[in-house]
C-alpha cells in the first residue's frame, strides 16, 4: 500500500512538471524592438529573447526599423499569431501608444524596455533607464571637467523619444547653474553616428572655439569624435556620451572620450522577461514604471565596466 502511495505521488509530481513545461511551451513571447541597426538594441532584444526562452517560452524578435507603421504590423502579426506577451522597445513615445493599447484590448500584456510610451495605463509595466538622473551625473562631471567655463555644443537624439529630452533636461539641470558654460549649438542627429559626424562638422565650422560636446548617445559621441579627428581637434574638444557602448568604453580607456552614462540593457531585458513570466503565473500588481539606474563612467572607474554593463 505504501509503495502504491509513493508511486501515485511520483506520478502526480511528474504530471505536474510536464504540465508546467507544456504550459510555458504553449505560450509565445514576442520581442518587438525599435531597430536592429544599433548594437545596443540588438543586445537588448537578444537578451530579452534569451531570458524568455530560458524561462521556457517560445520567442521571436521583430525589428520595427524605427518605423511606427512597421511596429503596428508587428503587433497585428503577434496578436494574430497567438503571442501571449510582448516585450517592447517602442519606436515612438506617442505613436506606439495605439499599438500597446491594441495588444491590451486583445488581453496581451506589454512590458516596455528602455523606451517609454506616453500613457500611464497602456503598458503592464515600463522598465526604463533613469536617463534624467544619469545625465545629472554626466552634467556634474562635465562642469568639473570644464572648470565651470567654456563654449560647448549638444547633439540631441530623436525628438520623438522621451529619452532624448530626459537626457537633455538632466544635463541642463546641472550645467545651466554655471553661467560660464555657454551652449552655442544644440542640434539633432537622430542617435545616428554618421548623422552626428555631419552635424558636428557643420557645428565646428560655425563655432571653431567650442571646448566640449554633450551627445545624447554613444553612437553620436563616436560620430562627433570622427568629425573632431577630421578637423584636427581630437583631444582639444571633450566628448561626453550616453549608453556604455563597447567602442566608447574603450575610447574612455584610451582618453579619447571623457565620459558616458552606462545603461544596463541586460537588467531591463531580463526584468521584462521575468515580469512576463510572473504575469502568466498570476501576478498583476506590477509597478507602472520602474527606473534602472545609470552609472557615470570616466577614466577613473572605467576598468570596472565592459560594454553595456559592469565587470563581475
Amino acid at each position, binding site marked *: 500500500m505504501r509503495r502504491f502511495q509513493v508511486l501515485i505521488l511520483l506520478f502526480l509530481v511528474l504530471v505536474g512538471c510536464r504540465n508546467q513545461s507544456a504550459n510555458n511551451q504553449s505560450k509565445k513571447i514576442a520581442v518587438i524592438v525599435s531597430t536592429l541597426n544599433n548594437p545596443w538594441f540588438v543586445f537588448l532584444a537578444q537578451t530579452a529573447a534569451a531570458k524568455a526562452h530560458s524561462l521556457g517560452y517560445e520567442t521571436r524578435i521583430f525589428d520595427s526599423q524605427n518605423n511606427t507603421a512597421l511596429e503596428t504590423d508587428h503587433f497585428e502579426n503577434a496578436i494574430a499569431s497567438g503571442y501571449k506577451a510582448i516585450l517592447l522597445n517602442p519606436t515612438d513615445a506617442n505613436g506606439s501608444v495605439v499599438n500597446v493599447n491594441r495588444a491590451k484590448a486583445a488581453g496581451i500584456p506589454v512590458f516596455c524596455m528602455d523606451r517609454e510610451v506616453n500613457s*500611464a495605463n497602456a503598458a503592464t509595466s515600463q*522598465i526604463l533607464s*533613469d536617463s*534624467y*538622473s544619469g545625465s*545629472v*551625473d554626466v*552634467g*556634474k562631471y562635465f*562642469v*568639473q571637467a570644464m572648470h565651470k567655463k567654456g563654449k560647448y555644443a549638444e547633439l540631441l537624439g530623436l525628438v520623438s523619444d522621451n529619452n532624448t529630452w*530626459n537626457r537633455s*533636461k*538632466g544635463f541642463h*539641470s*546641472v550645467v545651466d547653474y554655471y553661467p560660464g558654460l555657454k551652449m552655442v549649438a544644440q542640434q539633432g542627429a537622430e542617435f545616428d553616428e554618421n548623422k552626428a559626424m555631419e552635424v558636428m562638422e557643420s557645428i565646428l565650422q560655425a563655432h571653431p572655439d567650442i571646448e566640449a560636446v554633450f551627445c545624447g548617445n554613444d553612437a553620436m559621441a563616436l560620430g562627433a569624435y570622427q568629425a573632431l579627428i577630421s578637423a584636427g581637434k581630437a583631444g582639444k574638444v571633450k566628448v561626453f556620451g550616453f549608453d556604455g557602448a563597447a567602442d566608447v568604453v574603450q575610447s574612455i580607456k584610451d582618453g579619447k572620450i571623457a565620459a558616458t552614462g552606462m545603461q*544596463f540593457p541586460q*537588467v531591463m531585458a531580463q*526584468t521584462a522577461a521575468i515580469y512576463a513570466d510572473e504575469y502568466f503565473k498570476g501576478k498583476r500588481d506590477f*509597478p*507602472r*514604471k*520602474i*527606473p*534602472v*539606474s*545609470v*552609472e557615470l563612467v570616466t577614466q577613473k*572607474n572605467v576598468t*570596472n565596466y565592459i560594454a553595456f554593463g*559592469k565587470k563581475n
Partner: protein
Amino acid sequence: MNKKLKYGIWLVLLVIVAYNSVYFKKLDSMKALKAGNFDAVAYANNYLRKMLPAISNNAINIDQLLNGLKLAPQKTFDTYSKALDIGSIRFFLVRGKAKIINIDDSDVYLLTDGSHSSIKIATEYIFGNAVRDASGLIHINDFSNTSDLNNISAETNKIIRQQILPSFKAQAKKGDDIEFFGAVEMKSSHPDIDDVEIIPVSLNIIH
C-alpha cells in the same frame, strides 16, 4: 402678459444662462493645471523640514557605516541602504560628529569621531537623488509622472543650496567641530569608502 415684461424675463434668463456658461481663467493657471498640479517646491520643503527630521534617528552613524562597509558590505547595504531605481546605486541616510580639517571650493573635509578622514560635506555640487532616496520615505508608485520625482530632487537640492549651505559656508572654519545629518551615495558593486561625499540636510557648528 405684458410683452415688455415677457421679453424682460427672457433677457434675464439669457443673461443668467450666458453668465454661468462661460468662465474666464488665467492662461498661466490653465497651463499649470495641464502640466499637472504637483507642487514640487512645497513637497520638497515639507520633506526637508518635517519628513526627514522626523526620522533623523534612523540615520546610521557615519563611523558605523564605514566600518560596516569595510567588514560586511553586503549586510550593510541590505540593512541600511535605499533606492528608487533597480541597480547598484544605493543611498544611506547618515549622521555624525566630526572636526573640519580642510575646506576648498567644493567640499568641507572632516575627521570623524571614529577617526575616519575620507569624509567630506558637499558645498558646491548639490545634485542627484541622494537626499530624495536615502530616507525610503518616497515611493515610486505614489507618483504617476516621472518628472514629479525628478522635480522633488531638483527642488530639494535647490533648498539645500540656497537655504542650508550659505550660513554654514560663511561660518565654518578649519578646526571647528560640527554635527551633520545628510545622505550618501554608494555603488553596491564597488563601494568606495576612501571618498565619501555627504549631501547635507542639516549642519551645526558646535564650537
